[in-house]
C-alpha cells in the first residue's frame, strides 16, 4: 500500500505553522484566553477540562443516536477521575496532549483561535483532516484521542444502560 507523500509546499507550511504560529497562538491565548472555572477537579485544570469537553463535543455530538450527551455524564469529571489515579508520566502526557490540541491543532486548518474557541464544525474539520492525513503519526494522534473519548463515554453506566439491551446475566 502506498500513502501520498506530502509535497514540499505542505512540509514547508507545516514547519512554518509549528515554529512561528504556534508560539504566537500560545501567547495570544494566554493573554486573551478565558475558561469557566470548574470546581472539584483533582487533576485537570479548568482549561484542560474545557479542552476535554471540546473534544467530546465533536466526537459525541449532543444530538446523538444513543440519546446520552457528554454533559449528562459530566464528561470532563470522568476524564479527571480516569487521569487522577494514573502515574504522573501519564498525567503529564495527557496535559501535553491537551496543550497541543488547544494551541496547535487549529493551525492544521489555518484557524488562529484556540480549539475551544472554534465551532463544533470547525473542530470536526480539523480532526477529520488529521484522520485522513497521509501521515501515520497524524492519524495515530487523532485515533488516540478518539480512543480516549470513546473509552470514557462508552464506559459510563448511563451509556452502557442505553446500548446493552437484554437481561444482565451476572445479577
Amino acid at each position: 500500500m502506498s500513502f501520498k507523500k506530502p509535497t514540499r509546499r505542505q512540509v514547508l507550511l507545516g514547519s512554518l505553522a509549528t515554529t512561528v504560529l504556534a508560539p504566537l497562538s500560545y501567547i495570544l491565548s494566554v493573554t486573551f484566553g478565558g475558561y469557566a472555572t470548574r470546581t472539584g477537579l483533582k487533576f485537570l485544570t479548568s482549561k484542560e477540562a474545557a479542552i476535554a469537553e471540546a473534544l467530546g463535543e465533536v466526537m459525541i455530538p449532543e444530538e446523538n443516536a444513543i440519546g446520552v450527551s457528554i454533559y449528562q455524564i459530566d464528561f470532563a469529571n470522568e476524564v479527571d477521575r480516569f487521569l487522577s489515579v494514573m502515574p504522573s508520566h501519564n498525567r503529564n502526557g495527557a496535559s501535553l496532549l491537551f496543550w497541543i490540541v488547544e494551541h496547535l491543532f487549529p493551525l492544521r486548518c489555518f484557524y488562529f483561535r484556540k480549539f475551544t474557541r472554534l465551532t463544533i464544525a470547525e473542530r470536526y474539520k480539523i480532526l477529520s483532516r488529521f484522520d485522513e492525513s497521509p501521515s501515520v503519526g497524524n492519524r495515530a494522534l487523532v485515533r488516540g484521542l478518539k480512543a480516549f473519548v470513546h473509552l470514557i463515554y462508552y464506559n459510563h453506566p448511563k451509556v452502557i444502560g442505553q446500548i446493552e439491551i437484554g437481561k444482565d446475566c451476572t445479577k
Partner: protein
Amino acid sequence: MIRRPEEFDSDFNLDTDVVVVGAGPGGGAAAYVLASAGRKVVVLELGGHFSPKDFTKDGIDALTNLYQDGGQRFTLGNAFFVTMFGKGVGGGSLVNSAISFKPPDKVVKFWADQGNLKDFSPESLKPFVEKVQKKINIEILDVSKLGRNNTVFKEGLEKLGFKGGVVPRNTLGCVACGRCFYGCPSGAKQSVDKNFISKAMGAGTDVYTYARVSRIDINEKTNQFESLMAVIYDPKTLKTKCRLTVNAKHLVLAGGAVGTPSLLMKNKICNSSGQVGQNFRCHPSTSVTGIFDEPIMGYRSVVQGYYSDEFFDKDILLETYWAPAGMFGLTIPGMGKGPVEVMKNYKNFAGCGAMIRDESSGSLSFEGEKVQIKYVLNERDLKLLTEGMFRSAEVLLAAGAKTIYADNPLKSKFESLTELRNFFDQNKNLGPDIVREGNHGLGTCRMGEDPRKSVVNSFGRSHDIKNLWIFDVSTFPGALGVNPQVTIMTLALRGAEYLDGNFH
C-alpha cells in the same frame, strides 16, 4: 495471607527463603511450588487483592485498579497501539479472557532449537502442562452456552469450511457475561489468585499488596542477591506509607514483560548479554465488527469462546472477540455522529479478530516510572495482519453479517463477500493502522543456554546472578502464537521445581 497497606505505618524488615516479585501467572505458580515444598515465601505485588464483588461495570475503576498505568501503554514505532498489562493479585489472569491453550509443539521445538535449550521439548514439558491444566480448571463449555457472538463465528467457519473449536478456558461455571476484561463478577474465572496463590497462602505464604519493588541489592563480593526494597503505598492517594526490606536466599522476578526488565535495568543487573528489554513481542492483533439483522448481544457471550486454527501454519490465529463498548467504537471509522449512529445498533454487533505470531521485534527503555516501548512492525507481519483482517471479515460475512467494519486507511465498510474479496485481492498490506492491540507483551528477558545471547537459562536462572530467577512471560525466546498464560505457568512450575532441587 493477604497483607494490606492499612496494617503498616512504619518501615519494617522481613527474612525469608524466597521473595517473589509479582503475583501473576508466573509468580503465582512459582510461589505455589516453593511454598508447597516447605520453603518460606513472601510475595510482593504492585496492585491490590480483589473479590468478585469489586468487579463492577465501571470501566474507569476497572482500568485504574486492574491495569498497570491504567491500561494506557502504547507502542511507538510505525504503529501506535495499546499494549495492556494486568495488575493485582492474579496479575494478567484477573483481566484476561481465560483462554488456556497449551504451548504449540511447533513453537516449543523452534524455541528449543533457537536457544539450544536443555531438556526442552513438547514431551518434557507435558507433565507440567498437565499439572497446570488441572490446577486452573480447564473448562470446555458446550456450544449452547457460549452466546451468539461465538456461535455466529462458528457458523461462518463452517460455511467456509475452516476448522475451529470451542476455546479451552480456565473457568468454573462461566455465565457468559462478556466482561472478562474488567474482572469476573461471577467468580467463575479461575485466575491464579483462586488456585496457585491461595494454595501458597495455605502453605504459609504472605502476599503484600500495593507493594512496589524498586531496589534490588546484590552483594558485590559474592555476586549474589541479598535483599530488596519495596514501597508500600496508599492506593487512594498513591502516597508512600512505608518501606519494606526483604532479605532472602533467592529472588524470583515475575513482574511480567515490562515489570521485570524495568527492575533489572534500573538496578543495572543481569544484563551482561545486553538482552534485557530487547526482543519485545506482543502478538499484535486486528479486529472487525460485523452488524447482523438479529440481536447478537456479545455482552451476554463468552468474551473469546471460539477459535479457528485454519491459518495457524501461517502464524495467524482467529478468535472471537468481545470488548467493552469503547473499544468497538474504535473499529467504526470516522468521527462525530456517524460512529455514534452505528453504535446505536450495539446489540447487533459481532466481533472477531486475528492475532499473529510476530517476528517483528521491539525494545523497552525506562525513564523513572515511565516505559517507552519501541516496536516496528515488519512487512511480513503487516501482511499477516492484513490477511487476518480479511479472514475475520470473511467469516462474519459468511455467517450473515449485513455490514462489516474493518477499519483501515483505504476502505472500511463491506457489504458482500465479493466486494471484500476483490478489495483484499488487491491490497495485501494495509499498513500499521489496522493493529488494534498487542496484549501479550513478552520476550524482554529471553531464555537461552548461551549467556552472551540470553538473560536466563531454560530453567529461568540468571546467567549473571545465580540466586536470581525469572519466572514470567519475559523469558519467552520468541512469540508463541497462542495466548500465553498456560505456557507461562508451565515454565514457572518447571523452573520453580528446579530451584527447589538446587536451593543451596
